[in-house]
């Protein structure tokens, strides 16, 4: 039965990474650099949920939507006032990467000053997070719900991305934003929408993490790094590649925990990253 338990944990880690990588993919494909400010939106989502749900005692569902709105707004504003400004000035990736690392550092330290460096637990009572028995394995309610909700979200986003007009517009902008602009697609507006959606998805990741085990200011970068690794692993231009990459990483991480112990978990993404970069830099699914 231990195998089944491991599969459940892999499933949870895999969907959480998938959620983050979908949002990150939108941003990566549109601005073409590894914008780690995305990790800031993860933190903003988690901490805003703490603020609304536990400090201001707003009920659960409205608190989630408020936090998602703010984390979306965070990433949208960071793009509008920092990154789009730099991109318009034709700054190279060197400048963009430095600015985004600086912005993430600033965000996590500000949140650390407000909420403290200790783990912040969003749940009001620990007894709210009860465990469920799933065919002999255990997951807590947050993990189980997260699997269902994120799985639905993956389907919705895949549908939007591949089947609707809006999705086609997104793909056009991602493919070549200047040509897209020539044929009358409002590039700036699409970028803003993508950043808002991406920020909200990252924020949802932060909320789930905060409800499940709690959130610390360092988790912005800690979650950002595997997500970057996944997008390289899956091929940065591919939607499904990202999701496959998320599950590969989840499997590798959980098996490492089983065989070598939990403290090595964080190094797994980087070992994979270096192997992928050396062996197949274009990722699993080439586009």
């Amino acid at each position: 039965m231990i195998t089944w338990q491991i599969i459940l944990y892999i499933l949870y880690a895999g969907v959480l990474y998938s959620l983050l990588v979908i949002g990150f993919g939108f941003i990566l494909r549109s601005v073409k650099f590894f914008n780690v400010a995305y990790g800031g939106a993860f933190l903003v989502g988690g901490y805003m949920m703490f603020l609304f749900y536990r400090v201001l005692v707003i009920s659960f569902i409205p608190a989630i939507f408020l936090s998602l709105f703010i984390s979306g707004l965070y990433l949208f504003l960071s793009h509008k006032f920092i990154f789009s400004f730099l991109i318009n000035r034709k700054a190279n990736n060197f400048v963009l990467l430095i600015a985004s690392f600086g912005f993430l550092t600033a965000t996590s330290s500000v949140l650390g000053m407000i909420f403290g460096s200790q783990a912040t637990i969003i749940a009001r009572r620990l007894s709210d997070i009860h465990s469920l028995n799933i065919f002999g394995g255990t997951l807590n309610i947050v993990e189980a719900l997260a699997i269902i909700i994120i799985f639905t979200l993956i389907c919705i986003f895949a549908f939007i991305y591949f089947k609707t007009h809006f999705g086609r517009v997104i793909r056009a902008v991602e493919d070549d934003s200047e040509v897209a602009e020539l044929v009358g697609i409002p590039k700036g507006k699409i970028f803003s929408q993508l950043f808002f959606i991406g920020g909200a998805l990252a924020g949802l990741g932060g909320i789930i993490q905060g409800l499940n085990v709690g959130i610390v200011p360092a988790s912005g970068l800690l979650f950002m790094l595997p997500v970057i690794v996944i997008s390289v692993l899956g091929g940065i231009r591919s939607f499904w590649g990202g999701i496959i990459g998320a599950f590969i990483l989840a499997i590798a991480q959980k098996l490492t925990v089983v065989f070598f112990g939990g403290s090595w978990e964080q190094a797994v993404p980087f070992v994979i990253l270096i192997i992928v970069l050396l062996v197949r830099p274009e990722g699993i699914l080439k586009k």
Partner: protein
Amino acid sequence: MEYIFHITILISIYGILALAQNLVMGSAGLLTIAGAAFYGIGAYTAAILATAFGFNIFTTLIIAPIVAGLIALGIGISFARFRDDYFLLATLGFLMIFNTVVRNWENVTGGSFGIAGIPKPHIFSLTFDTPFSFLVLALIVLFIVIGICYFISRSSFGRVLNAIREDEDALKIFGYKTSTYKLMVFVIGAMLSSLGGVLLASYITFIDANLFTVNESILLWAMIILGGIAKNRGALLGALLLITIPEALRFFGFPNEIAGLMRQCIYGLLLVFLMLYRPKGILGQYKL
């Protein structure tokens, strides 16, 4: 007076680190975040050799650069094919792996407990255990590093590095083997950083994995970019400013934890604002 010595020692150590980072990132334009890893390798080499094997810190000042240089050589060869973003990611991966290894290899690095009781350097009957004598030692090392950096930036090697930063492909056409030059500067940078690590370990006598994180590399970035990237003087100025200015927070009486976070916040915002309004820094010539 002790306090001024303390600050000056820190400035010297960070001056060394900033110069080394500037050599790699400024002169050659290799975007690396592994600065803290080589700094840490230096510190851990010194700490392990001095506490477990009774080495003199002076000896480790020679051994640590060799260890760091060899590791950098291996890393550099395997990362040679990456450019820009991917080089950054690969060095980030290296830093995280280094950090995890240090945190977990308890027999050697003390795991999360770190290594305590690192001795001060001594030569014959002279021990550098007062702040003043340690400052003299730190300044001597700093001046050696300054000498090396100026020598490199004025040599033909330095000019090739600058050319790599400006246009690597053009240089390749002229028949320069750019990957060899990049590898060399990466190794030299790592060796110089490790000197800073040895001094730090011996000075604060206690090290653990939390000293060598991404935040530390971000601080080095902020230093060289604030001072003016690709300028040796800029790196020194950046180290001076970013060590002294946040010290002012201490006088406002913020608790330690908040002051640390505020410093981080200043470094981060500084990077963002510099990128937005003055990417070449205070003394800079090279426009990013």
